[in-house]
Each structure stands twice: as C-alpha cells, then as structure tokens.
C-alpha cells in the first residue's frame, strides 16, 4: 500500500507512441504485400503464371468470387465443419480433462496413450475414417474432431491439476459439497488453460481443414483449392489462400479476445 505511482507519460508522448505502435503493424502488411508483388514480378511462380499469382490478380479474383458467391459457397461449409467438430471436441474434452486433471491415478493411467495419440496426424486415420463413415462430411468432421481434442484435453488437464490444495481445503471448511467444489473452484481454475487449449485447437483444426476437404467433399475451401488448380485459375487459387489465411486470423483473434476477457491472471 502507498507505493508511489509510476510517472505517467505525457499526453503528447502517449499519442505518438499510439500512432507508432499502429504504424508498424500497417507497415508489416504493406511489406508483406510488396514481397508478394515482387515475387510475382520476378516470375518466382513460373514464366507463364506469375501474373496470375500477383496480389492485384488475387484482389480482382476475390472481387469476382465475392460477386458470384464462390466465397460464401465454400467458406460457409468449411466454417460449419470446423465449428461442429470443435463443439463436439469441447463437449468431450472438457469433462475428460477435468476428471483426468483432478484424479492423479486417472492422469497416470492416460498419460502415455494421450501423449502417443496426440502426435499422430489425423490424416493418417483418413482411410479408417472413410471405412467407418464413408466419403463425405462425416469423415471430415471426424478427422477435425480428432485433431482438436488433444490440445483441449491436455490443457484442461493442466488447468484442473493446477487447483491449489489450499482452495480445496478452504472450500471444505466452508461446507462445500463435491458439486460446489467442481463448479466454483475446479472449473473456474481451469478456464485460462481451457481457453489456451481452445486457441490451439482452433489453429490446428483450421490447418487440417484444407487437406481434409481434399478427400472427396463437394465444397469447402480445401475442395476449392483443387478446383481452381484444375481450372488453371491461379488468381482464384491465390484469392482462396488469402481467404483461408484471413478467416484463420479472425478465428484466432476471436480466441485471443476470449482469453483476454475470461482468463483470470495470477
């Protein structure tokens, strides 16, 4: 108590730093586009197609795809698949993670299988998924579920395991029952780690989505990559890549917002 507050920077200095902070983000975007355009000028993408790979061509294709509905037609199924598989992964992973994190024996029991399973690319399961679920949406959703579940489980385990025994003892002296301990101590304690797990899960789901959608579904951004290739529309290919990056970035931003909003700090 009573320690002197740090000196506040002057209003002017604050304004300048605000601008310069933003400035460098914008500069990063400009440099990125410049590098892309330069690569196209230098024919990095080959003698015949480099023009189609330029940011300008991609922009024009993007506008065209926006007009003819290709973006919505392919981005929506992709988002739907990712969100459904993520929801299913959350529903399974959170209870499992809390239980495994809370009971030490359960953690010992599951440690090796979980660590083993999480290192297997879900695409390796593809043939098995197709045998079980057939070619189509269900297989893709299953593969995405399989990739999302491990970061969610393992982070929740970590979070639930971090519950201080002090809190549990205190709760017991306050007359808490198991249910109260679970809902008021263990789950809130694990929330920051659950959110970190969610962020990782969204990231890897979105990455695995593209190859997973190349496995025989009739729509989605992954499918559309192959489609533009087959039609030699490399401008549309670049536009699709841009959209994949953009949506991924927005999903991750949403997660960062969730973390800043709901994760308590020590």
């Amino acid at each position, binding site marked *: 108590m009573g320690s002197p507050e740090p000196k506040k920077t002057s209003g002017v200095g604050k304004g300048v730093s605000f601008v310069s902070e933003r400035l460098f983000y914008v500069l990063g975007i400009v440099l990125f586009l410049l590098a892309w355009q330069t690569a196209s000028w230098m024919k990095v993408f080959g003698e015949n197609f480099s023009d189609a790979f330029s940011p300008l061509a991609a922009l024009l294709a993007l506008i065209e795809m926006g007009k003819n509905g290709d973006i919505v037609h392919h981005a929506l199924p992709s988002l739907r698949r990712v969100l459904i598989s993520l929801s299913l992964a959350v529903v399974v992973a959170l209870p499992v993670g809390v239980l495994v994190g809370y009971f030490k024996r359960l953690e010992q029991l599951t440690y090796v299988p979980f660590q083993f399973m999480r290192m297997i690319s879900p695409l390796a399961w593809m043939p098995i998924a197709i045998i079980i679920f057939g070619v189509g949406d269900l297989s893709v959703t299953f593969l995405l579920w399989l990739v999302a579940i491990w970061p969610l489980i393992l982070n929740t385990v970590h979070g639930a395991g971090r519950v201080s025994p*002090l809190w549990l003892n*205190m709760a*017991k*002296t*306050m007359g808490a029952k198991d249910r109260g301990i679970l809902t*008021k*101590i263990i789950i809130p304690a694990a929330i920051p780690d659950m959110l970190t797990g969610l962020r990782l899960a969204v990231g890897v789901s979105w990455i695995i989505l593209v190859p997973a959608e190349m496995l025989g579904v009739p729509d989605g951004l992954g499918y559309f990559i192959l489609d533009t290739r087959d039609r030699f529309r490399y401008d549309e290919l670049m536009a699709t890549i841009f959209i994949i990056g953009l949506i991924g970035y927005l999903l991750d931003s949403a997660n960062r917002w969730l973390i800043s909003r709901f994760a308590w*700090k*020590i």
Partner: protein
Amino acid sequence: MVDNKNGTLRSSTPSAQISLKGVTKSFLKGSGRVEAVSNCTLDIAENEFLVIVGPTGSGKSTLLKMIAGFETPSSGEILVGGKPVMGPGVDRGMIFQEYALLPWRTVLQNVELGLEFQLGKRTPQIRERAMKYIDMVGLTYAVNKYPVELSGGMKRRASLAMILVTKPRILLMDGPFNALDSKTKLTLHSEITRIWEQEHNTIIFVTSELDEAVKLSDRIVVMNKAGRISKVFANNLPRPRFGKAALEPAFHHRFIELREAVMDEVKAGAGKVNCAADF
C-alpha cells in the same frame, strides 16, 4: 500464572469446546518415525483466545491442521463440542499462512463464496452479509478489486472476511499475520480482537511472535522441538490492550514480564529436547 508440566491440565470441564487427548502425529522419516506432535493434552474453553507459540518445527501448524481436520492424529483424540473430529467442518474456519483467495473472484465475490456453498446460490442477502464483513475488516473501498491488485495486508483482511462471514464457532489461524509490516499488523491485531469480542468465537492462533501472543491471548501454549506442550501460561493482562491502556507503566511492566517468561520457555524448548526420535 498457572504452570502445567508436560501439558497435562485439569480434566475436561463441561464448558470445554475443544479437547485434545494425548494427540500424537508421527511421520515416517528415513528408517524411523518422527513425532511432529507428541502426546498433547489440552482443553480449550468456549470463547477462549488461545495462542500457540514455539520454535519452528515444534508441530504448532500440524496440531492446528489436525484440529481443522485436514490431518488425522496417529494416536489420541480430538473432540470438538464433545464429538470427535472426522474431517474439515463448517464449525471450524481456518485462515491459512498463504492466501487462499480465488484469483478469478473480486474481494466481494471471494467473501460471498462460503455463503454460496452453504446456500447453493447467490441471493441479495448474501451480498449484504458479505458487505458487512468486508466493512468489518475495513476493505469496503476495495470490494471490486481482484486479489492480484491487493497488497499483502489487504489480502489478509480479505481472507479474514472470507472465513468470518461463514460464522465459524472456532477460528483456526495459522500465522495469519506473518510477513506483514508492523503498522498493518497492529491494525489487524485490534481488528481480530474486536471481532472476537463481537462474535464470541473461540480462536486458536499459531504464531512465532511473542509480542503478538501476549497482546492477543487468554492463554499461551508453548510447544517445544519434540512436539510436546512444555508449558501453558495464563495471560491475565487486562483488556483492552491497545492504544492508551498499553502505555500505562504497570501494564507495560506486566506485559514485558509475561513475554520474558514465555521467551525463556520457548528458548528452553528450542534446544535438543528429547530429539532422540529424530535420529
């Protein structure tokens, strides 16, 4: 002053709220067993303010944890209100050496926690009662702050309110004011005394500071290195013991006298007393 050799006191009286009967706690260490608490027998009366002192490793905290029900005695018995302790209970509120505040809850929400547990849901009455206790520990100005924003003294106050609001008949305090600056400590000493006089609870307070022990207690129990109760001092200093009253020479003299007597006992027990079990 009442002296009691080896912690044996007069047999249990009906008013005694807590009875320790030959309580021993031993741990496996190396090839032998070490007794952290050894054959402690003591009756603690209702509304008594009992302070336990002793050198580090004398089993004070272990004894307190057994009364709280977090640990079970290896032998002997602990009775609270005539019934043996079977685990933690709402009748015994424990204030820990470390802060037990939940970092994702504000001060107010932390203080409401115990009532939420007991009633199963949040109600306006809960908020009202929590505010009353937050006011009691002088934290009204910080109700909406998170633990990470609080100073050490504020965290202590919040922890205190958090336990007090559940109205435990017995307050177990394990070095609750350790590592606080002396001004905050002084304030909290008069606060806890005032609360104790107001709420009529029984307090068992573990500390290694003798000034604190003499200022707060009705009786001072000295434990030694062997985990035994070596002596029990009755503290008949008149209350209030703060402010003007403490400045009177006669009071001051008696204060020092008792502190020195306790100090001698603690020093005597800090040496190699019955440490055979250790080696």
